[in-house]
């Protein structure tokens, strides 16, 4: 029987190469879901603040639904239940695990991000809107040129919160057998029966992503600080 590899040898020869592949999937999941989530969330926030009641209610309903049910359920629903439902209407659709994960994570994050944007927009003094409108700017111009740019610095901290949560929530997609970081970790750990030596690397992987995210955010905040203090 061959001698058991040391921790460092086991890590560098077996664990890290496989976990790296999982890490790449996790990075892609995080990046794409953050991207779509940030866009959909802004859209939802604007709907929620619109003067048209129907649009407002649509946004409220959406946010209630996605904040009120578990993300795990949403992932399972999109992957397993949605194709069945569409199938009963004779629409043939198979969703792969990766797009299903991106859809579920984006839609879920959008609900939280929408409320962050809305809080940011509502925090701007109403005199700003009045001054812009008094100059003749339209509602849309006022929002895009005056209100939203002033929210950036205020919403960076809560957005980093949400995106950190999102990074870690990508691990839930392991339930539909997508080979992201946690799923890969479980497989390697089970195969070699060396649990902590694998899991510790996975933990470090998530930590690094969140750390990079916070560092970028801090740089961004610093840069905005020099622009009139808002």
């Amino acid at each position, binding site marked *: 029987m061959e001698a058991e590899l040391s921790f460092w040898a086991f890590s560098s020869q077996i664990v890290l190469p496989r976990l790296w592949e999982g890490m790449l999937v996790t990075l892609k999941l995080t990046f794409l879901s953050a991207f779509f989530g940030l866009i959909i969330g802004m859209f939802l926030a604007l709907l929620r603040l619109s003067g048209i009641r129907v649009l407002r209610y649509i946004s409220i309903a959406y946010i209630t639904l996605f904040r009120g049910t578990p993300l795990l359920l949403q992932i399972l629903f999109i992957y397993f239940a949605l194709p069945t439902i569409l199938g009963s209407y004779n629409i043939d659709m198979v969703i792969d695990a990766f797009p299903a994960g991106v859809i579920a994570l984006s839609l879920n994050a959008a609900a939280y991000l929408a409320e962050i944007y809305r809080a940011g927009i509502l925090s701007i*003094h109403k*005199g*700003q809107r*009045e*001054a*812009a*409108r*008094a*100059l*003749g*700017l*339209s*509602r849309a*111009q006022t929002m895009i*040129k*005056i209100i939203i*740019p*002033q929210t950036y610095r205020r919403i960076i901290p809560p957005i980093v919160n949400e995106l950190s949560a999102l990074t870690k929530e990508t691990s839930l997609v392991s339930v539909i057998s997508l080979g992201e970081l946690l799923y890969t970790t479980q497989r390697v750990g089970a195969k070699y029966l060396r649990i902590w030596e694998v899991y510790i690397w996975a933990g470090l992987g998530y930590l690094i992503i969140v750390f990079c995210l916070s560092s970028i955010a801090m740089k961004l905040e610093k840069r905005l600080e020099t*622009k*009139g*203090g*808002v």
Partner: protein
Amino acid sequence: MSIVLEIKNLNKSFGENEVLKDISTDIKKGEVVVVIGPSGSGKSTFLRCLNFLETPSRGKIIFNGVKHTSSDSEYNLNLYRSKIGMVFQSFNLFPHLTVLENITLAPTLIYKTKKEEAETNAKKLLEKVGLGEKSKAYPISLSGGQQQRVAIARALAMNPEVMLFDEATSALDPELVGEVLKVMKDLAESGMTMIIVTHEMNFAREVADRVIFMDKGFIVEQGTPEQIFLNPKEKRTIDFLKKL
């Protein structure tokens, strides 16, 4: 003199509370109208209804012969607002933009003025309000009086036909009031049509062509500064002036 603004039966209620009651008056081109009255008399609401920042409950405003009401399209109201400048008590400069950008934003967005042209014009306006050297500064680094002068330049950049001043000096430290009043006085002398809500009675006496005294949502009395300040007819006007 031709009439720029005809204000007809302007009413404004907040719920049960009637703030403006049937205000009608004409503003002539080049006229400087000062509105005075106790707080809560509706003078600020009156001013804010004139450019539809506050939606009048009833009534219309005829600007150069064109009728405007609360039911006007968004587009028409924006167009109208761009011709009516407004200066606020709390300045409301855009803190994320430099002084120059504050002034050039609206002309480039709305009139599609070229950037260089808008900047040249903005610099001229800054010279006019005595802040030629501040174009690259952000509002946060300016004093209240400087901010308010930039706000005046910002409004002037749209070439307005009427300027509204809503207690433009009320938020300023006493020693900074003078510099803003001077800019307003220069503007009045240059022939700008102005409607000014203020508590500065000496200033009102000096620059006004007409003084309107408002109380409880009504125009109680109006006339030349001499008539209102030296010979008020209504008891409420007399009581108000006595308290000053």
